[in-house]
């Protein structure tokens, strides 16, 4: 795991040739993203302290910049357009799976930034959809050839955290069927025909992650943390495991003591050990950090 000094975008681009070698080994072919890779899984953490405006809302231009920087680092390509062409073909039918939880959404800014680059890769708007609760009925998702998985991370009363793995729960008709044992088997959803092998990119939104749940609606503004981050990865388990470490670090800092998530986010470990969807082992994750690095917790 790379836990050294963070680099900014300019510095990163200077070392793009070095990064390209790693990316050649790690970047999956379109349609294979999300499966465990040989060697380490690359996770890119991009942070920009200016991504939120005075009201706490994301600034669209900053979000686009963060996404572009992240995708370049993830793929080892020198610009976002060429990076996206390694992920999306012009003939793809693309579903962006977002999260509509009213208190903490994927955000329109992240969705628009993704949409912009996907369309630049040659996918017309008519073959692109953004959805959450309606994915099973959405004709674009029904015939999708590529999925982009984008959601915020938050503490969750039953699954430990709302994660990228968990974000596909709406691909089953009865989400409560996956609830036993604190949603341990969420990764099984990733083997369903509508999903399997289609995920080209995972984006874990960490602008303001929620680190503690309070009350029946699970949300309280007191327990969100301005983190200013985006995590990008092909491996959803590696991204979730990294996001989980960040949330645990925030909890440690806020409460002033070890305060494990209750319940633990068992589904992330099980996604690795039982379903082999990716790796949750920090030793097998190559973490690239770009930008603001104060209190990164990883």
């Amino acid at each position: 795991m790379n836990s050294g000094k963070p680099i900014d975008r300019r510095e990163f681009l200077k070392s793009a040739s070095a990064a390209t070698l790693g990316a050649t080994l790690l970047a999956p072919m379109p349609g294979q993203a999300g499966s465990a890779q040989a060697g380490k899984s690359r996770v890119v953490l991009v942070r920009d302290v200016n991504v939120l405006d005075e009201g706490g809302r994301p600034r669209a231009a900053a979000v686009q910049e963060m996404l572009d920087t992240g995708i370049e680092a993830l793929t080892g390509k020198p610009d976002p357009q060429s990076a996206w062409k390694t992920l999306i073909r012009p003939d793809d039918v693309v579903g962006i799976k977002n999260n509509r939880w009213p208190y903490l959404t994927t955000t329109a800014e992240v969705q628009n930034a993704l949409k912009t680059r996907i369309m630049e890769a040659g996918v017309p708007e008519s073959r692109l959809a953004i959805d959450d609760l309606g994915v099973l009925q959405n004709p674009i998702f029904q015939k999708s050839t590529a999925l982009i998985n984008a959601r915020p991370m938050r503490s969750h009363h039953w699954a430990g955290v709302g994660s990228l793995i968990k974000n596909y729960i709406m691909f089953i008709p009865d989400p409560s069927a996956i609830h036993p044992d604190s949603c341990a088997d969420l990764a099984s959803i990733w083997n369903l025909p509508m999903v399997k092998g289609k995920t080209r990119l995972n984006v874990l939104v960490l602008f303001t992650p929620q680190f503690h749940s309070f009350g029946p609606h699970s949300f309280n503004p007191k327990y969100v943390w301005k983190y200013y981050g985006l995590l990008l990865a092909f491996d959803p388990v590696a991204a979730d495991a990294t996001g989980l470490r960040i949330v645990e670090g925030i909890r440690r800092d806020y409460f002033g003591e070890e305060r494990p998530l209750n319940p633990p986010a068992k589904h992330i470990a099980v996604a690795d050990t039982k379903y082999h969807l990716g790796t949750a082992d920090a030793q097998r994750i190559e973490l690239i950090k770009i930008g603001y690095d104060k209190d990164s917790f990883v």
Partner: protein
Amino acid sequence: MPRTLNDIGRKLPGSIGGWTRAAPPVVYTPQNLSTYIDGGAELYLSYNFRQALSLKYKTTGKDEITVDIFEMGTSADAFGVFAHSRETIDSTVGQGSEYAAGLLTFWKDRYYVSILAYPETPAKKDVVFTLGRTIADSIEGRGTLPPIISLLPAEGLAPQSVRYFHHYIWLNSFYFVSDENVLDIGNDTPAALGTYKQGGVGLVLLLVRYPSAARAEAAAARFRKDFLGGAPGDLREMKGGRWSGLLRRGDLIAVVFNAPAADAVRAMFIRIKG
């Protein structure tokens, strides 16, 4: 005086402080609670949730105040779900309450109540507390705390840390024990957790009461093997030099986690009544 959830609903004011009830209350049952609060429903189901009544108060604009009244199986369950994530001790409303940034929660008798008004304003906060007191006053009687909580030694106990549960999922509030049911905790095994500061570090005490001594011994045997690794005297030094230990006394199991020394584990066991 109201005796049922519907009675309490009927007693709610039609308007308060310029806020007016927007629509008739909606009632949720164990079968459809997840349609309202998604996966968060499992927390309530694990505390014998019976039904909930939900309604909104509105004023001009889009602002609203959401009132949710949960009827739980027992007053112990109402306390358990209230205490599940609390961080402070306060009894301004009901038998125990907590307020943070626009959200008031409290418990009284077998009811757990949430009044949510985001974003918080001073005026809305006043209405939230007035509503809370109105609802608390309309709930007849007071609930009793889970008896097992009284077995937690009082000296040094952080009162806001006290947890009550009977589902293994809630074992890990202050110390990661396991994501498996290593102590055979279920609906018939009331459990309590509390933390004690010793040397600046939180020692965690867990108590579980079983229906029989035989069942307690079976659970203890598994825990000794899986968690304590068969350590002699049921005491084991864990990561970071911290100690854990187990004691079974009849149908009661006590487990100490994160103690600074083996002696601290033994000393805590001596203090446990019952």
